[in-house]
């Protein structure tokens, strides 16, 4: 709760709205206790008194009634009606939406078509029709406004419920013996309450306006009872001669609706988990760089990652995702980067081209040199010219990297023409050629397919084709086969290997699978807790791992053909990178750890084979 309030008031405007609304609600609650004139007491002698006149702070209306008193009583009524309407519409709409979304099928179809019909009428027409049937009166106006708004809630909540009803925990609840009613009440409803609250808080203002609108037309509150809409309606005839009679209720409506909306937006931002973590902040075009010193250039590798440090700075916490990682890649070489989730392998790859989202990512040290040119801190224009052109990426999930609304051919053509000023026809020809290169059957036909029309394996081929579009020197492949089936994985790996040999591509291949590394890569680097713990030629590392982590990780992985057995597990969990232990990050899980492992910095030692361990399994 305190977190909620803090988040709410972080948004200044929402805080302002909360204060204004708080004052108005307080005044409305206190109205019966305040020393006011009776709101309906007429005095024709005092018609149209101006504001600040004696005894009537805001003046009087056409019957000489005190405007301040009528304003406060009217506000009280308008607020009550608005809140009540929102509550009724919210509860009824949510109930309909939950039922339709949870049961689906025919229930959903019939209910939602009914709701659609309700939505097909212009809301004011529908409200007028309802009032015409029920007769004018504030209660009927309330019913009309509530009914008119039910579809909005029902549709909203149905959408959310459909998402929840297919989650695994609902299945689990059924298997635990819960009936539909109980599942709805205890499993589904708690998960949609925030959505209902958000929807209500952003629509109350709208409901107050609608009620005022009906009263303005004379269909809501009946004379002499005052609400904001009827006050406006009665003042309309004297708009020119006595404008204050319109301005006073008008300003009040403005204040209420504005403060409710500002507060509603704030509540939405504070409750929505996506907005809570600051997703509204747009990431910068390249990762922020904040490094003290630049390591001197050395070596002549094609790509030289030197003591790279990338951190995520979230509030006071600093996550050291990549900690002094050094890698190099020669032309035509395939380097495997292996590690568990959270080991920093993907962040290393993304840092190369400044693709780590900032905020919260910051590159705090090291250099990445492509043919001797430092990419860290390079101007965005330089990075943009190199991205895709010299260094291209292939990502894990091709469905989320391809734009769902564009044909794959158009996406390929765009990728080509970003870097080369060729004609549309020429680019199209090259796109077809690229699809043929990645062995997509019927490339000329498939070029105009949408991503969803292709299978997972075909989509990943398109992803590879896009990476190849500008004939890059380096491909960084981040778990490109993890989402694929084994037979498709084998096809994609064979394709990558063939492309590497034919085009002399250098590949940085990120994976968690030793089998894949063993088949594809010349050299391998193993990461743990944001650091490289071992690196060397693939066969040498896999046959005789030097770091205890590598040895035990390999032992964990079942290998086909080894038969039924108990696997060697590593107890414990990988460390959180915001709380890395001193010394070796693996020491708490390592059975060979000594006191010396838990202090100071342990260096990566060796020449072709390097290991970061004081007591390696084999001499590096």
């Amino acid at each position, binding site marked *: 709760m305190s977190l909620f309030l803090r988040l709410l008031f972080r948004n200044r405007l929402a805080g302002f709205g909360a204060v204004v609304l708080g004052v108005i609600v307080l005044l409305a609650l206190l109205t019966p206790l305040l020393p006011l004139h009776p709101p309906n007491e007429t005095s024709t002698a005092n018609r149209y008194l101006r504001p600040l006149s004696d005894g009537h702070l805001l003046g009087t209306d056409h019957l000489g009634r005190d405007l301040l008193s009528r304003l406060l009583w009217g506000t009280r009524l308008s607020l009550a009606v608005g809140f009540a309407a929102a509550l009724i519409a919210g509860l009824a709409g949510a109930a309909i939406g939950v039922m339709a979304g949870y049961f689906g099928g*025919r229930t959903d*179809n*019939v209910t939602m078509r009914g709701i659609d019909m309700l939505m097909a009428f212009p809301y004011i027409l529908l409200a007028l029709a309802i009032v015409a049937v029920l007769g004018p009166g504030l209660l009927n106006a309330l019913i009309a406004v509530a009914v008119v708004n039910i579809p909005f809630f029902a549709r909203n909540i149905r959408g959310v419920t459909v998402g929840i009803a297919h*989650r*695994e*925990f609902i*299945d*689990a*609840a*059924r*298997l*635990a*013996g*819960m009936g539909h009613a109980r599942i709805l009440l*205890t*499993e589904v409803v*708690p*998960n949609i309450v925030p959505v209902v609250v958000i929807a209500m808080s952003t629509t109350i203002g709208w409901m107050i306006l609608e009620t005022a609108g009906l009263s303005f037309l004379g269909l809501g509150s009946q004379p002499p009872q005052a609400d904001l809409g009827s006050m406006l309606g009665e003042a309309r005839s004297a708009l020119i001669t006595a404008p204050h009679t319109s301005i006073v209720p008008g300003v009040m409506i403005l204040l209420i609706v504005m403060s409710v909306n500002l507060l509603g937006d704030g509540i939405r931002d504070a409750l929505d988990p996506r907005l809570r973590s600051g997703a509204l902040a747009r990431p910068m075009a390249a990762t922020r760089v904040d490094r003290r010193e630049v390591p001197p250039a050395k070596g002549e590798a094609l790509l030289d990652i030197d003591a790279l440090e990338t951190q995520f700075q979230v509030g006071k916490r600093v996550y050291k995702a990549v900690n002094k990682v050094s890698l190099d890649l020669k032309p035509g070489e395939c380097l495997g980067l292996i590690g*568990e*989730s959270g080991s920093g392998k993907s962040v290393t790859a993304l840092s190369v081209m400044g693709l780590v989202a900032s905020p919260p990512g910051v590159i705090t040290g090291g250099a990445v040199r492509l043919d001797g040119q430092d990419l860290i801190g390079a101007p965005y224009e330089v990075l943009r010219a190199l991205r895709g052109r010299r260094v291209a990426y292939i990502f894990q999930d091709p469905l989320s990297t391809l734009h769902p609304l564009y044909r794959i051919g158009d996406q390929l053509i765009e990728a080509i023409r970003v870097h080369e000023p060729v004609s549309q026809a020429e680019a199209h020809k090259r796109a077809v050629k690229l699809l043929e290169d990645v*062995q997509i*059957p019927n490339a000329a036909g498939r070029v105009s397919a949408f991503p969803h029309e292709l*299978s997972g*394996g075909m989509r990943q081929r398109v992803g590879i084709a896009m990476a190849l579009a500008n004939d890059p020197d380096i491909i960084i492949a981040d778990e490109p086969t993890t989402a694929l*089936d*084994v*037979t*498709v*994985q*084998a*096809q994609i*790996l*064979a394709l990558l*290997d063939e492309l590497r040999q034919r085009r002399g591509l250098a590949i940085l291949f990120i994976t968690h*699978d*030793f*089998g*894949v*590394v*063993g*088949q*594809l890569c010349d050299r391998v680097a193993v990461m743990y807790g944001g650091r490289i713990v071992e690196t060397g030629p693939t*066969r040498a590392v896999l046959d005789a791992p030097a770091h205890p982590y590598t040895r*035990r*990780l390999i032992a*964990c*992985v*079942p*290998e*086909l*053909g*080894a*038969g*039924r*057995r*108990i*696997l060697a*597990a*590593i107890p414990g*969990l990988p460390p959180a990178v915001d709380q890395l232990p001193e010394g070796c990050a693996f020491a708490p899980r390592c059975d060979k750890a000594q006191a010396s492992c838990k202090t100071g910095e342990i260096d990566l030692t060796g020449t072709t084979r390097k290991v970061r361990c004081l007591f390696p399994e084999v001499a590096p």
Partner: protein
Amino acid sequence: MTLALKTTDLAKTFDIGKRLIGPPRAQVHAVHPVSLEVAQGETLGIVGESGCGKSTLARMLVGLEPPSAGQIEIEGRALDRADPAAFGRLIQYVFQHPVSSLNPRKTIRQIMETPLRRLHGMRGAALDARIAELFDAVNLRPEFLDRYPHEFSGGQAQRIGIARALAASPRILILDEPVSALDVSVQAQVLNLLARLKDEFNLTYLFISHDLAVVEAVSDRIAVLYFGSVVETGPAERVFAAPRHPYTRLLADSAPVVGKPLGGAGHGELPDPLNPPPGCTFASRCPRASDQCRGAVPELRRMTGDQFAACYHPLDP
């Protein structure tokens, strides 16, 4: 040998493009009639690629999906009512995504209590004692009970999922890709835990996975699914070592193994489920396919010993 689970021609057909009135536009046969037998205390591994119907089969077995045809027998008694609670006491399910199988708005204690209360009517001290016992069995600390699911890592959440499934005191556990969302070092922990629990609680497992090596490491017998049909079954040590069905061979060759050259690739994809071929569904990808294969669907038949394959031209052992 007593049978824990037996299915007879269990099949599932989904309607595509439902209409308000009248028949659907098309039908997809997600699971073709499948007959399986699992002995008491056995682990049957089910492997197949995405879209082969392995999850639909699993969901039918626990009653989350009513079968279109066929029968399920558990320990000799037929179960055909689509009432998950009736299934729940006999057969339980461990989900693939550990965190999303736990309701984010409930504490672990509330999650653990549900099956005990609903299926076994436990209350009060007996309930607390049983939860403590289960948590101990899956190596979790009791103070976790008052936390919410998002506070747990994948491996811990999967232990909670296993403990919840065990709370129903089932005879059979369906494990649907229970470790594929976990890191390898944690994967081994969970697999070993499952092996220990099986002996401790005298359980029968159906272990579904796309990872051949994992399935081989934990199973007694393996069934290979392709496009909704069982194409091969046999003892775990034989199925991938000496496959008889060409698809099984393709799978085994595709699995990346250190030191083995890249291979097994081959071409082709799954047939269109809306328009399946008349004969063997693997024929379009199969190097041994003949006209016979394209004409009629091969039946599962005995090859050698306990190994069955649905193929007209099986590979030599």
